[in-house]
Structure formats: structure tokens, C-alpha cells
């Protein structure tokens, strides 16, 4: 008995640390794929498609040459909207942080818009701006900008007034005050907003592609759905899911990187 225990110990220890650490992850992924495969094979093909079929269909879509350009099309939309949201949201949030009266005045309205399902504005955007690229960017922007503003303002609230008073009593210039106090204190919070904004911008991207002019991945998946191409629907959802997870990881990494400043 002791021998078998010893054996087991040596066996686990002989496995590299990184592999031991990642083993549950891979076991869970393989099991999930097996369940998916089994479920797909035991139901009608119109209802669900096994993993193998999904990958096969994805490969077909890629080889047909339409999928990658559509994916890039979606990416352009996402990054344009997201970049504008960041470029507008972070400075605006910090401005609110600096000018107290403005912050107090604007705060409740930002809260209200943040709590409102902004998808409801899409029909208005459609009828005002039509089918171009700009309305879709606006949708992504609207989805992404409020978490950035909201969290930046939260960060600004966490700045101790003494810090600003000390800086002022040492006659620091407005620029130095921003660089030395405002920015370092609000940035980690802004990055929390960035993480949340990534997820919301993805929703905005898909919503824009579904309900405004149909382009990108949204068009691929809508087309597949209308043709009852369940495998195509699964393939697109699979890709979007992977993109979502990857973006979430990037968001968390960015947030953690900046969180080191936050006490």
C-alpha cells in the first residue's frame, strides 16, 4: 500500500508543474467537446450540430473566402467604436473628476443612461442615420462609453481631497496636478471601465450588425440562420465565443496591470 502511494506521488511529481496546473482545464474542455459531440449526434441536424461538424463547416466557410473578410469587417467596427469611446470617455470622466460642480450635476444622468437598455435607441439611429458605417460605430460607441465614464468618475471620487490640497499648496500647475495626482489615481478605475466596455462593445457590435445594415459576423450568422444552416450558425457562435473569451482575458490582464497602482 505504501508502495502504491509512493508510486502515485512520484507519478504526479514526474508530470511537469505547468501540465498539472492546466490538466483540469484540458480535461474539462475535452469532456465538454465530447458532450457537445454526443448531444449533436443524438439530435436532429436542424436542431444541433456536433463539434466535428461545426469545425468542418467553419473550415468550409473560411476556405470559401467570405468568412475572414467579414470577421475583419466586424473587427474594424469594434475597434473604431471602442477607440472613440475610450478617447471621449476617459478625458470626459477626468474632466468630471476635476470640476466638482460639473460632476455632481452630471452624475445622476450618467447613472440613468448607464441603467437604460441602450439597444432601444437602435431604431431611432436607424431612421436618422440610415445604413452606413457611422451609425454602427455610434452604437458600439454608446455601448462602450458609459462604463468608461462611470468608472473614471468612481476613481475620481476615491482621490483624497488632501492630495489635491497639498498639490495646490505647493503651487503645482494644473498640468502637474493632472499628471501626478489625477491620472495615476483614476487610471486603474478607468481600466475597470475598459474591461466592462470591451464586453459591452462586443454586444453593441453584434446588435449593430443585426439591426442596422447587416455586415460582418452578424451577417454571416443571420444568413446561416435564414438558410437553416445550423452548422453555419454554430460555427459563427463558436468563433464569437472564442473572441469574447479572448477579449475578456485581455481586459482582465489590462485591469490587473493597472490595478497594481490601486491601493
Amino acid at each position: 500500500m505504501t508502495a502504491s502511494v509512493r508510486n502515485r506521488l512520484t507519478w504526479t511529481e514526474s508530470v511537469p508543474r505547468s501540465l498539472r496546473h492546466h490538466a483540469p482545464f484540458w480535461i474539462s474542455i475535452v469532456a465538454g467537446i465530447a458532450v457537445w459531440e454526443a448531444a449533436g449526434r443524438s439530435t436532429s441536424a436542424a436542431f444541433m450540430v456536433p463539434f466535428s461538424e461545426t469545425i468542418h463547416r467553419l473550415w468550409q466557410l473560411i476556405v470559401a473566402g467570405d468568412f475572414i473578410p467579414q470577421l475583419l469587417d466586424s473587427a474594424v467596427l469594434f475597434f473604431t467604436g471602442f477607440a472613440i469611446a475610450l478617447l471621449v470617455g476617459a478625458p470626459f470622466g477626468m474632466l468630471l473628476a476635476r470640476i466638482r460642480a460639473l460632476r455632481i450635476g452630471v452624475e445622476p444622468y450618467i447613472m440613468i443612461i448607464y441603467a437604460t437598455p441602450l439597444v432601444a435607441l437602435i431604431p431611432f439611429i436607424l431612421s436618422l442615420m440610415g445604413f452606413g458605417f457611422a451609425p454602427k460605430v455610434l452604437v458600439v460607441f454608446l455601448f462602450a462609453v458609459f462604463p468608461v465614464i462611470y468608472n473614471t468618475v468612481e476613481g475620481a471620487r476615491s482621490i483624497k481631497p488632501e492630495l489635491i490640497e497639498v498639490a495646490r499648496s505647493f503651487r503645482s500647475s494644473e498640468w502637474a496636478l493632472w499628471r501626478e495626482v489625477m491620472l495615476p489615481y483614476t487610471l486603474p478605475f478607468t481600466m475597470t471601465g475598459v474591461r466592462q466596455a470591451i464586453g459591452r462593445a462586443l454586444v453593441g457590435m453584434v446588435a449593430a450588425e443585426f439591426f442596422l445594415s447587416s455586415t460582418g459576423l452578424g451577417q454571416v450568422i443571420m444568413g446561416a440562420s435564414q438558410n437553416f444552416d445550423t452548422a453555419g450558425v454554430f460555427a459563427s457562435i463558436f468563433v464569437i465565443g472564442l473572441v469574447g473569451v479572448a477579449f475578456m482575458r485581455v481586459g482582465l490582464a489590462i485591469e490587473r496591470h493597472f490595478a497594481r497602482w490601486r491601493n
Partner: protein
Amino acid sequence: MTESTAPVSLTVASVRKSDPLAERVRTTFMPRLLTGIAIVLAWEFVVRGLAPAYVAKPSTVLMAVPKVVVDPAFQKATGATLIAVAEGLAIALVLGTAIGLLIGRSAAFDRAIRHYVNGFYAMPMIIVLPLFSLWFGYSSATRIATIIFAAIFSIIVNVADGARSVPKEYMEVARSFRADRLSMLTGIVLPSSMPYLLAGFRLAAGRALIGAVVAEFFISIGGLGYYILYNSRSYHHNEAFVGVLLLAAFGVGFELLVNWSTRRFMPWYRRDEKAG
């Protein structure tokens, strides 16, 4: 000298006493009111000056309110959406809490499905609409399914966090009194995860509203989302915007309700928003 200073210090004290309310009105209420007025006026005049006549602006939206509120179509749409959101949220709450507790208290279960929960949570929820419409058809079942899918993962993730963070001592005491697993779960883990549950529920409610509206857009079934879509397509922007205002009121209402109940029932607990 002393006689003359006494009344002065008294008036200072009385001024200070009446200060907080006046101070609050001056520093908080007034800026908010003025900002609100500025936003409404800017919207009104920008639309008047630059946009076609059918575009919603505060004055015309306000005039549309009495007409819309008594409109049976609007009432029916509101009822349909609200009932669907309530049903979906209830199902998501029960299922999500159960799964969240399992993940939080069982390492094996956690390892088995955490990546899937996180993966689905990171997925833009509305991407499942084409699939759900294939599965459930163009019916209210698709809307309910979308709402559940939109809402459940934020509940699971938050409840699991809460169940994980139960102090070890509580469990040890319960175990030494030979409590069985079920009563530990319902008597200790669930109550101490409550603030997390509420935080998850707040996020879930917002996501459920989005899910409902998006499903109604997508499959064109009766509800507030469809009401907005239909009216804006037929250039009744003011009527449609009343629907948006109502959705905003629901969103804010949920938010306030959850914040209030956290403060009311769990005054010891303050927690920042978990995940977006």
C-alpha cells in the same frame, strides 16, 4: 463684552444648524437641476434647428405621454415585456443560484464547468438569437430563452463568488455540530452569499431588459421593444421614445430597488460592482 458675544455665537450656531439642508440644495440639488434643464433645452433646440420634424424632442415627447399611456397597444406591450422579464429573471435566479452554490462549494464541479460559465458570460449574449429563433421559432419562448441566457451567468458568477467567500469558521462550527450538507447550504452559505446574489441580480436585471428588447426586435413579437421598433419605423418617434423612457425607468428602478434592499437588509455590506 461677554454679553455682546453671546448672541453672536448663538446666531452662528443656529446658522450652522440650518446649514446642511441649504448646503445640500446649493451644492447638490441645484447643479443637478441646472444640468437637467441644460440637457433638455440643448436637446430641444438642436432637434428643432437641425433635425426633421418627426424626430423626438422633449416638448413633443411630453405631449405624446398622455396619449401613449392610455393606448391599449402600449399597455399590452409593456405587460408582455415585463411579464417575460419577470419570468425569465425568476428562472435565471433559481437556476443560477443553484449552479452558483454548486460551483462555489464543490471544487470538482467548479473545475468541470467554470470555463464554460466564464465563456458564456464573456459571449455577447445577443449572438444566440439566430440560434434560439431556429430552436424555439418566432414565439415568446425565444424571448424567455434569450432573457434567461442573458441573465443567468451574472447570477452564477456572483453567487459562486459569494459561496466561495463564506468564512471557514462558520462551516467548521456547523460541521462540529454535525449539520448536514443541505442545512449548511441553506443555513449558512446561501445567507452569507446574499449580498453577492443581489449584486448579480442587479446586473442580471439590466441584461434581462436588454435581452427582452433585442429578442423583440429580432423576432418581431409584441412587447415594448417591438412597440419602439414599429413606431419609429412609421415615424412616430415621440411615441416610440415614451417606450424608451419607460425602459429607462425600469432599469433605474431595478437599480434603486437592489441598492435600497442591500442597504436596508445588509447594512454591514458594501460591495463594488462585480463584473460588467
